[in-house]
């Protein structure tokens, strides 16, 4: 059991009438090795939620346990936690600051207090893992393309060797190919290293093909928490929250309405294709 959120509530603007409840009694269990999609529109509380996972925000009430320990216990090291639960923020521009990519990636492991050799080894491994070409290593991070910056930022967190990797909208602003490349990278990180991955996104289409489980947030609470198939079957409710089911779900529902007896729970393009071919064959 990697991470447990137990009735977590978070409010800001304390004391005034402007108090906003960003999280409302959220309970979640995140087991080891799962790939989770955390979905919600802007302001649904998803970003606030992930900032609780590594102790950047402290819940107003409720507890968060990492491997059975309360992360807000006095003798629990936050720094160590942040090495274990790696959080990559939306804009790589918010974290890249060194004169070259390699030194920047060293920043995380250095903060963990590792010796120089280990730091450099980890930085090198991380850069390899994210697939940045070698000639980028000693370039200023600001010269990289959008997709490469994103990779450098992910490497900066991977170099701390986290057990849980949380990515906040890693595909925002990328073009379609760049988006697919980053999603493939994240998926391979999970497959190769057995990491727990939490991918925050507002697009169902982005995560549908990859994740094991989808958590949908709306107005600070969790409204769905299930397999993609189950979640997408609530098409109308999702649309009510300003989210859309993946387009393949739309297609299947439209076919069903037109009198085709198709299975509406398919989630990937490949499954959809096979389903339609099956119906056409009859």
């Amino acid at each position, binding site marked *: 059991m990697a991470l447990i959120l137990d009735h977590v509530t978070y409010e800001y603007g304390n004391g005034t009438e402007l108090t906003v409840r960003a999280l409302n009694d959220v309970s979640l269990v995140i087991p080891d090795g799962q790939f989770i999609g955390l979905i919600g*529109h*802007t*302001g649904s509380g998803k970003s606030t939620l992930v900032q609780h996972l590594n102790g950047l925000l402290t819940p107003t009430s409720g507890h968060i346990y990492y491997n059975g320990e309360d992360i807000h216990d006095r003798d629990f090291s936050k720094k160590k936690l942040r090495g274990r639960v790696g959080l990559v923020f939306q804009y790589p521009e918010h974290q890249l600051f060194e004169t070259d990519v390699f030194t920047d990636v060293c920043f995380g492991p250095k903060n963990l207090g590792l010796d120089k050799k280990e730091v450099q080894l980890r930085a090198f491994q991380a850069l390899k893992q994210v697939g940045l070409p070698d000639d980028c290593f000693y370039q200023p991070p600001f010269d990289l*393309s*959008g*997709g490469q910056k994103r990779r450098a930022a992910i490497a900066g967190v991977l170099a701390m060797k986290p057990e849980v990797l949380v990515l906040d909208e890693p595909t*925002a*602003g*990328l*073009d*379609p*190919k*760049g988006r697919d490349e980053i999603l493939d990278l994240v998926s391979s990180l999970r497959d190769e290293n057995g990491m727990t991955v939490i991918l925050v996104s*507002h*697009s169902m*289409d982005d995560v549908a093909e990859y994740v094991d489980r989808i958590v949908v947030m709306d107005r600070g609470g969790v409204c769905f928490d299930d397999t993609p198939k189950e979640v997408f079957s609530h098409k109308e409710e999702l649309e009510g929250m*300003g*989210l*859309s089911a*993946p*387009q*393949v779900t*739309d*297609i299947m529902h*439209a*076919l069903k309405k*037109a009198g*085709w007896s198709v299975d509406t729970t398919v989630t990937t*393009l490949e499954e*959809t*294709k096979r389903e*339609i*071919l099956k119906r*056409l064959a009859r």
Partner: protein
Amino acid sequence: MKIVKTKDLVFEYIRRDEEGNVEGITTALDHVDLEVNPGDFIAILGHNGSGKSTLAKHFNAILMPTEGTVRVDGMDTGEQEKVWDIRQRAGMVFQNPDNQIIGQVVEEDVGFGPENMGVPTKEIWERVEESLRAVGMYEYRKYAPNKLSGGQKQRVSIAGVLAMHPKCIVLDEPTAMLDPGGRREVIRAVRALNDVEKVTVILITHYMEEIIHADKVFVMDGGKIAMQGTPREIFSRVEKLKELRLDVPKVTLLAHELKKEGVPLPDGILTVKEFVEALDRLRSGRR
């Protein structure tokens, strides 16, 4: 007369290293010829770094061609004294909503353009009101921009351009930083401008769903126009688009895949509705 016309447009810039020495010359636009008819809805597609934003900045005289010409409503952007006329004729909306709103209050921001043009006070107010109504933001006129959502901010930016009474509005990836809801909001507003107000729209984007209603699509790659045509023509070439680092809508892709399996579907299906209809036709044809 064409509203925008580029001829043999080349744009180059000099790359320098940290010490300021010339490293080389990058050709961002490479002999681009493009024409836009008044009243059209034009989409310019391309992956990041394809030159589409550089092209857009030429329509507003923010960038000047290295070679060739750009004419906006008949005026050459190279003529210094025409710059302000050109910027008024072809308004521009940028990607980041936070970095283009100047006013502290929505209505003040929308009034910024007309103020700069020297429009009399009474008329500024009329323009602000009609522009805000056109994008459906009139109720928010007294709001601080910081309190609005991304989609709302972009609609305010559009109103700000609209208040300058342009003939043409150029939108440079206006939805890249928005969530799906915000994206729909903005595209709806843009389409309404084109349909109702008859403003020429040039939309630069890499989201495929946004261009299916365009009259004409240009696809950029490596500073050149790689493809052009109606959305249907463009989307029927799925493989070519993938080569250009672009996507097609899932439904188009599905139809394409089914076709590869031997299902006789027409090319370039753009919407779910079309897809279902095409399958229905297949079914009834077989009976």
